[in-house]
């Protein structure tokens, strides 16, 4: 008995050491670059960190309370929720469609894949600048195309209407992030055994039924990951809103508000508190997706 315990402990030690050794670099990197700054940010959000004022007094929840009554902050929250809804919907539906096409394609698949991935390879700022030209009210492509097909008679200033502005910013963000969703879902689709579809066809199942009963349940984990990443990235939307419409309140996201509070008004603790709230909100929404998608698409 004692001998077998010793053997087991020795085995565990060796395995555990190897596992720890392999995990150590990522633990250190994540600890130093993510966990530690996060802990400092949480702690300092309870203090007043404003270089223009002397000292760093403890203020408790005052920063959080101030955020609850600030009209600009509340508007930026509303804008961000709208961004999340639009961007996640476009990315998920578009990404799923692209993944299904890529999964079925037999000719020119690699070129199609390269074309789908291209926007994801562009830096966010470059992406936003390209779309800034497209949306330009004087010489933009969008006005030109719509005028050419006769849908509009004269140039539109797209960002003059708040909802249009929010939609257009979300489209730019979704255009950049859609490839990631498509790739995650393509990987899930490729892991489904083809004999399941063959059996379903023999049983006379329609394409829609095959999609609903086989594809959707078997890509559920991939779908949950795709939804989570879309949500987190949409909550963190900054470059597109900033470059396309600056600090305009109609399209200001929470991250733009964080930037303005911290770096423009030099009220760092207020910015920290807001970024913590944004992180909590994105995690909560992601958790709801993961649990719901997982539950609804399981056979058991």
């Amino acid at each position, binding site marked *: 008995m004692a001998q077998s315990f010793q053997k087991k402990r020795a085995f565990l030690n060796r395995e555990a050491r190897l596992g720890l050794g392999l995990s150590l670099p990522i633990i250190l990197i994540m600890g130093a670059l993510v966990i530690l700054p996060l802990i400092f940010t949480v702690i300092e959000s309870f203090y007043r960190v404003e*270089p223009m*004022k002397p000292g760093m007094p403890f203020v408790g929840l005052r920063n959080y309370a101030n955020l609850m009554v600030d009209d600009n902050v509340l508007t930026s929250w509303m804008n961000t929720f709208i961004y999340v809804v639009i961007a996640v919907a476009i990315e998920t539906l578009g990404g799923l469609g692209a993944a299904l096409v890529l999964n079925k394609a037999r000719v020119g698949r690699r070129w199609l894949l390269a074309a789908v991935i291209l926007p994801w390879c562009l830096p966010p700022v470059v992406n936003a600048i390209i779309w800034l030209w497209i949306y330009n009210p004087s010489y933009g492509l969008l006005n030109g195309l719509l005028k050419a097909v006769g849908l509009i008679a004269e*140039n539109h200033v797209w960002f003059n209407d708040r909802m249009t502005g929010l939609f257009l910013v979300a489209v730019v963000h979704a255009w950049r992030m859609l490839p990631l969703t498509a790739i995650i879902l393509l990987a899930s689709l490729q892991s489904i055994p083809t004999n399941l579809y063959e059996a379903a066809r023999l049983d006379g199942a329609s394409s829609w039924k095959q999609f609903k009963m086989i594809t959707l349940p078997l890509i559920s984990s991939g779908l949950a990951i795709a939804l989570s990443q879309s949500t987190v990235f949409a909550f963190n939307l900054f470059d597109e809103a900033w470059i396309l*419409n600056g600090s305009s309140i109609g399209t200001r996201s929470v991250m733009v508000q964080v930037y303005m509070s911290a*770096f423009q*008004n*030099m009220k*760092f603790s207020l910015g920290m508190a807001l970024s913590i709230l944004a992180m909590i909100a994105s995690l909560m929404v992601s958790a709801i997706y993961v649990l719901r998608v997982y539950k609804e698409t399981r056979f058991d």
Partner: protein
Amino acid sequence: MKRRILLSAAAVLGLGAAILPFSAFAAEPLSVLLPPWVTLPKEMTDKFTAKTKGTLDVQTLGWDEIRTKIVTSMMANTAPASATEMDWSWVGQFGSANWYDDLSGVLSDDLKKDLPTTSIFTFDGKLIGVPYNNDFRILIYNKAHLAKAGISAAPKTPDELLADAKAVKEKAGVQYPIGLPLSATEGSATAWYLLTKAFGGDLFDKDMKPLFTEKDSGGYKAMAFEVQALKDGLIDPASTSLKDVEIQELFKSGKITFDVAGWAGNLAVYSDATKSQVAADAAAALIPNVSGKSRTIGLPGALGVPVSAKDKEAAHAFINWMLDTETMEDNYLKLGNLPTRLSVLQKLNKDGKLQQGDMLIAQAGLVEPLFPSGTPGWYPEFSAAVATNLNAAAKGQVSIDDALKAIAEAAKEAQQ
């Protein structure tokens, strides 16, 4: 024998490694952080090297980005560069954070007397920026457009400006004659400050209480003027997305007639045929005013040295070089940055090199600081509120009354 060679080689390598950092330090260029309109051409940096034996590592960043870089670096107790741009609007914030050195000792008494705008960069008795770019606002217009509309003189009042713009639109075929930025950016806010003065108003009283919420105030009339001109089709509807520098491009291409909040130094650029399509037609006039007596605002740029800068002596030498008569002339003639030294301005005018020199000097005499007692630390918060609400009013998302009330509220909150 082999061992001796090995030891000698190791000693040489070790010595080399020890010396290298010092030699590299000696030849290290001076890091300087400047905005795009001060992109020093090689011809100018060569002159700096010839005079000081030093070299420059110039980083060019947008105005907003420079500020962000300074704030992030200084929060980490690291200087973003040995010498940086110091905008007039940052003085209150950076001064109260004690991020910049007092440069009073760097300038000679004669030089201080020759630089009237140093008071704008003085915070708590410390000169934290040495002004090198004399930005004040002047009305710049296209005289060919006015001539086509049968107008012989530049407008002297805001009403005349509106009437002239309507005439130009009708008779000269200029679709949108008035150039004013209305995006949610600093350039839009400064144009509104200027128009507030043009309508005979001021932003705050001596106790820093807002003076722009009443309908008969200058600030209210200024915003109403901008919104109405936009509605009347005298301002391009796309202006709600345009920054001040984009308005300047419209003027250069002949698409607008009036650059209402024109940068004084830009006359040199507008009159340069290699950079402007309206070089022969660019002219300047005093900023219109309801009283008939022009008023304008000074928004100069300066150079500062962060407290944690690496090479302060070289930074001081760079600042002094930027104030040299020859450098200031080059800065104006090549880049359109108007000299801050009175003697250099007068010399340029005397030599016939100052575009519309007499008008510039006349307007320069009417410059008022936006905040007579120094730019307060809360200015950026106030200015962001101005830009945001002006933009929202121009888009029709809020009324002028609501926009101005929101700005006043933001000013009060920022002051707390």
